[in-house]
């Protein structure tokens, strides 16, 4: 009763929900962005840019009685497709005639929803609000996550003022130079979205393609054969598992570290003869850096949306634990 009256009293100030949302603090905005990404139905075209390279894609996200389904379709170059059906993600690569299937055991939700994790996030990033500007024809609120060290990248997020949906995201280095950017150029939020848009175009053709079905089993790595000597401030182990990336490949170890915003994956696999000549060093794919190294007859692949130096630091600290 009292609560409702209090709500009413406050309600007087609320002209529209949208106006109220611009008053939100930046951390609440992050929570809103996550909720919008999971709950809203939307379809649109976005541009992915990395360096001087850019690609246009169409994305459709529908939540209904059968759960969360999503499709990403690259419109430039070879027609690659990624389809998500709840926790199952399938990637169709027509050029390589390959389907990669990955099942996520449990989707880790963004820590902004958990108060303790927000504190962790705020320990390593200054989180602040920027200006309201237009993206894809919609007013958007800029949220800036500025790293407090050079271990991680900065993030700039532009979210639709009305719905909270992320319309543009940019990852920047320590000089505030863009590393990669996603930006909607056109988007429809809500309204009727044809479910046919979720269908894989290559499902029929893919029947004779090579299928790489990743099998994973969650595993506790604390007593494993591998020791991570270097701790990266703010990055905590979020999951450890045994997996096979390719059907015929031997089992490998996959450990994920995250600071709540960025993630680093470490893959450790026994070296077979043909891989022995594999290259070591640093590489990059889009906004993701990759560090490869060989140690104790194993190949280490450390990758993530963090600066290359961070990967090298973590990777060089990994050592084989000698059996007692």
């Amino acid at each position, binding site marked *: 009763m009292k609560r409702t009256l209090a709500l009413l009293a406050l309600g007087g100030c609320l002209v529209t929900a949208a106006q109220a949302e611009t008053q939100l603090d930046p951390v609440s905005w992050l929570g809103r962005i996550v909720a919008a990404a999971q709950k809203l139905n939307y379809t649109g075209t976005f541009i992915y840019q990395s360096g001087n390279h850019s690609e246009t894609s169409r994305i459709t996200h529908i939540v209904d009685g059968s759960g969360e389904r999503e499709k990403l379709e690259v419109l430039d170059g070879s027609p690659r497709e990624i389809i998500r059906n709840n926790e199952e993600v399938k990637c169709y690569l027509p050029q390589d005639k390959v389907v990669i299937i990955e099942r996520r055991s449990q*989707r880790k939700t963004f820590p902004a929803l958990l108060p303790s994790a927000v504190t962790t996030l705020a320990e390593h990033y200054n989180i602040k609000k920027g200006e309201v500007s237009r993206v894809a024809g919609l007013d958007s609120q800029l949220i800036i996550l500025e790293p407090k060290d050079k271990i991680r990248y900065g993030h700039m997020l532009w979210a639709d003022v009305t719905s909270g949906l992320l319309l543009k995201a940019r990852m920047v280095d320590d000089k505030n130079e863009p*590393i990669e950017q996603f930006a909607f150029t056109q988007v429809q*939020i809500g309204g009727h979205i044809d479910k046919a848009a979720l269908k894989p175009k290559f499902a029929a053709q893919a029947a004779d393609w090579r299928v790489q079905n990743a099998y994973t089993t969650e595993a506790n790595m604390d007593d494993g054969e591998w020791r991570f000597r270097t701790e990266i401030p703010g990055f905590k182990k979020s999951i450890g598992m045994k997996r096979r990336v390719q059907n015929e490949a031997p089992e490998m170890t996959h450990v994920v570290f995250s600071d709540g915003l960025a993630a680093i994956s470490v893959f450790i696999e026994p070296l077979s003869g043909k891989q022995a000549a594999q290259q070591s060093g640093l590489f990059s794919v889009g906004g993701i850096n990759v560090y490869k190294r060989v140690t104790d007859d194993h190949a280490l692949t450390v990758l993530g949306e963090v600066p*290359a130096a961070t990967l090298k630091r973590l990777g060089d600290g990994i050592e084989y634990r000698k059996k007692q």
Partner: protein
Amino acid sequence: MRENVSALMDGELDDAGAQRALEAIKRDPQLHRTWSSYHLIGDALRRHPGLAANYAERVLERLQAEPMMMAPGALRRQSRPGRLAMPIAASLAGVGMVAWLALSMNDQSAAPARAGAVASPPPVAAAAPVQPATPAVPASAVLPSSAIKEYLFAHQGYSPSSSIQGMAPYMRTVTEKRQATAQ
């Protein structure tokens, strides 16, 4: 009666009180609007993100799909006020949602525009070339094979960026940027 509506929302009424309040809301359009507004305000304050446009439709669909109790005994039990209160409250919530959606559509002049495909040139910032970051450590040349795709794909599923952006970051796993860096 307004106070009773408020108390009903807060779950402070007993079965008989709830029954009376719900009856009154059904009869009195003014009270019905009050009920809807209270929910609208509550949603706004709780910062509920925009709901799917067909939300109310789905609530009503679910209600219709609920199994109907045909046995006379069950019918008798259902007719008790307390039993009845819930389905009515649920259908009213559905109506409230319709009202809420209608209100939010009317209140925001931007709303009709967003429903249609708003085609606009990419924002200036998006059009500006994004310079590659120079790694702090010298990077060695080219990534040898396309084998890295599986690793990227496996990684992306566990990156919090998927929670913020949905599937868009999967673009990294299939980007053809790799060829571009082969310099």
